[in-house]
């Protein structure tokens, strides 16, 4: 049975540039231009869609990280720079995503350390960097200022802007020319509203990546999937306020009972399986960046994407 795959779509997903090479005033070894799609990914006989990028997530305070990953990565997790290096050379990620979990400590005040961490990670890896900043509105302003400053020229992707909490991150994006992740709680209308708010504050469309929020497989991922699908359909039908690339992080999967309480002998396999299937499903729904925490998930995802037969990879900016 064959389906007609010409949907009559008129929209194109906007492109966002991640990372800046020396030629563009940064120090990254490569940069990516994501987005640009005109239909759904992985369709046979449809225009080729770029393979989703895989970001490996690390953090600067492993107390806030899943014990599964702490055990698997071992000592690495205690050195943000070594971990970032491993992500680049051993795990072969496309992107490094740094979570500033150190700012989660109660009454965190060592703002200067944020700058040092960002600078250290930028020199430890030459991949484009995603940074998840503060988790505490009170220190947003200072943390994002430091992130923005420390990464000036590097075209970072900064996270995470939310409807009630986007000004600091927007300010950092505007002041230092970074892009931002705009997260809404699995709701297309809120996603659109946030993008409009960001536009009103001055953030250009080509600096926004949508995070529709990724629920865990078995714990609401189907809602995420549906929201992503609808965001993408609307974009392809011509809604420019939703025509941005999407990012998905499977982070929640490591905290659900089935994974957390898996048999110790197979816990890594379970964690990887959960991340993998979430990642594949998110990619099918249209996500341009898939974030994972288990190193072993990266290779599997890459293999799967290759198997799903897309004819080109993400366009590298020459």
């Amino acid at each position, binding site marked *: 049975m064959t389906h007609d795959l010409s949907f009559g779509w008129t929209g194109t997903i906007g492109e966002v540039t991640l990372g800046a090479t020396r030629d563009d005033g940064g120090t990254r070894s490569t940069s990516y231009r994501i987005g640009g799609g005109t239909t759904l990914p992985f369709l046979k006989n449809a225009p080729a869609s770029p393979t989703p990028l895989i970001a490996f997530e690390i953090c600067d305070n492993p107390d806030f990280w899943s014990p599964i990953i702490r055990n698997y990565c071992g000592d690495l997790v205690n050195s943000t720079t070594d971990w970032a290096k491993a992500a680049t050379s051993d795990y072969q990620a496309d992107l490094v995503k740094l979570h500033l979990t150190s700012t989660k400590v109660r009454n965190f005040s060592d703002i200067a350390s944020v700058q040092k961490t960002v600078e250290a990670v930028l020199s430890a890896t030459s991949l484009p960097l995603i940074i998840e900043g503060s988790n505490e509105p009170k220190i947003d302003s200072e943390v994002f200022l430091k992130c923005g400053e420390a990464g000036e020229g590097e075209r970072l992707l900064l996270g995470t802007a939310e409807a009630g909490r986007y000004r600091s991150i927007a300010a950092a994006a*505007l*002041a230092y020319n970074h892009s931002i992740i705009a997260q809404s709680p699995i709701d297309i209308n809120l996603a659109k509203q946030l993008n409009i708010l960001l536009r009103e504050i001055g953030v250009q469309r080509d600096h926004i990546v949508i995070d529709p929020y990724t629920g865990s497989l078995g714990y609401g991922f189907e809602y995420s999937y549906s929201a992503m699908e609808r965001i993408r359909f609307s974009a392809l039908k011509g809604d420019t306020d939703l025509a941005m690339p999407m990012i998905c992080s499977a982070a929640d999967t490591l905290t659900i009972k089935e994974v957390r309480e898996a048999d110790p002998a197979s816990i890594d396999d379970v964690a990887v399986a959960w991340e993998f299937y979430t990642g594949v499903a998110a990619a099918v729904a249209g996500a341009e960046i898939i974030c994972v925490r288990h190193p072993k998930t990266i290779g599997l995802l890459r293999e799967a994407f290759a198997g799903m037969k897309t004819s080109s990879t993400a366009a590298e900016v020459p």
Partner: protein
Amino acid sequence: MTDVEFARKHGDQELQIKVPALSGSFTYDDTAYHLPISFALTGIAVHDKPGAQEVYAKTGNNPIVASECLLAAQTASAGKEPEPFTGFISDTVIRKLGYSLVDGSILGLALILGKPANADSAAAICRELQEKYMLTFLAGDVIPVLLNSGVKLGLDYRLIPLGSKSVYGIHFVDIIARVAMMFGGVTPGDMHRLLHYAAERAKAIVIVFPGLSDEEIAFVDGMRVLGFPILTPGGYEGGTWITAGAEDIVRRGMEEKGIRVNVTAIPIPMGCSPAFEGKSIRKEEMYVEFGGGRSTAFELLRMRDASEITDGEVTVIGMEVDTMVQGSANPLGIIIDVAGKTMKKDYEPVLERRIHNFVNYGEGSWHVAQRDLIWVRLSKEAVAKGVKIEHIGKLLASKFRMDFPQLLEAVSVTLITDPQKILEAKKEAERVYEERDARIKGMKDNEVNTYYSCTLCQTFAPNHVCVITPERMGLCGALSWLDGRIAFEISPSGANQPVEKGAVLNLQNGEYEGVNRFVKKASHGEIERISLYSVMEYPMTCCGCFEAIALMLPEVNGIMVVNREFTGITPSGMTFSTLAGTIGGGAQTPGFAGIAKNFVLSDRFLQGEGGIERLVWMPSQLKEELKSRLEKILSDKGKAGFFEKIADENTATTIEDLTVFLERVEHPALAMKPLM
């Protein structure tokens, strides 16, 4: 008293003489924007007299441009002024300032010029500006006056001394010009956009004390083009400057420019975001809980007069969380008092429902249900981080202000944990609930021409559309027609939209042309027709939130209803959850309809199938819940005794048992027109 208009004319003349007399070259270091005002206005990089003259001519002899060029030339020849004066401020600093402006940690910019006669009132003005998150620039004699009275100046104090003379205030304008170029997407030379940005986006006010020269007055008055209100505590007349008393001048200026002090962050020791909304707190993660049948609890939002409320006030009556036993259930009354010019009493229940979302936004707080059925938990983690009951109040007070800035001007929260006092307060709440219910009770579908849609659930059921009428509330049981109307008033582009009923297509089934048109559009073309009162023909779509399901049982020519709480098997051979899985997701399934439990009590219930006589089976618990009300309705209709003919799981669990039961009680459905 200085006449502004006269001084402006004279000042303009002076500047016209001085510009052609410029000499040498003049540039600022540490900027990529040359002379920023001239550059932003014309795109011309001025660094000597010809450039200055060109820009001056192009801008129609603008006094601001003239002053910028003259000051740059003077700075170039005489050097920068010594500390504490900052003089021209570098791009790096502006980037940070711009950051704070976008970020909201600075609400706006103020410029103070001239020589205040009274040091104390000048200091008070500065203090007020500091308190209101304004970044203030100072130029001229005001600086020594403030320093002499002990006011601390510098970026850390948000009081920046630009220079010894008022003309240094020109740097205030070059800062705004650079912010417009850096953050506002204004391209150099795009005068129109620059002026638009300055007028619409730059939140700036100017306060002028006496003692300005005519040239200085000319440039200050020139700032009116940028849309900055120019205020003075006195000493100037004529022109359009605003005279205001020292104690009122900041408020007046901020009001003129529309600078509002908003709540930006909630001062509580836990995260607060919709991202936490879906997280539940399980028993083992819980520190304490309230309500949920384990203790008395309720919530109530009331409108009050503004004079009765102190905005942001949170009061806890009774124990705080630190004196509660871990794992225990405690009483909790949440009373929210709100005031606002556009607030209406009708909005109370709609706003009250937001308590549910807001409490769930807390990283360690959880909330379900409504009114006096609420169930609230605080997590161990949150309590360990220092979260108290008081913080739930703070969260609510802040969120209501943040989310309804146009509607609410003051919000205060009272939390009652005292087991005695809560009983009294609950009585008052129950009275209010009854009043609210009575308001909607008498309304009939044929009395209104407009129904309301609800597409909240399109998040997960993309093509689902609820149509809410006075006699048929949303299938989730949470939204009445009145709520829909109010939700639309509050947020006109939200999920509740008016639906014009239009021409009648089928009166008995409740099918209307306008409703069909709306549903087709709102369901993205998926659903063409719906009937409001029929289960069999074009029933409404089902999202997944329905309180109960009404479905046909062709074997007995009747309709059964099963509610979500009933876990057993029904005569249809399926449980609630199996049924729910079959019909949800926004589909239209003839023979099945998602309904609110209370819809059973409506005159419109099963109208398309011939009325309530079709009802053959309901779980006993639902029967019990509806019994007193349903029996009264039935007896009013002359159908007393029908209630007993409705089977339940005690009389029939299979279709065979049901057939036997219905025949024995001579259920009217058996003799009705065949359903299929």
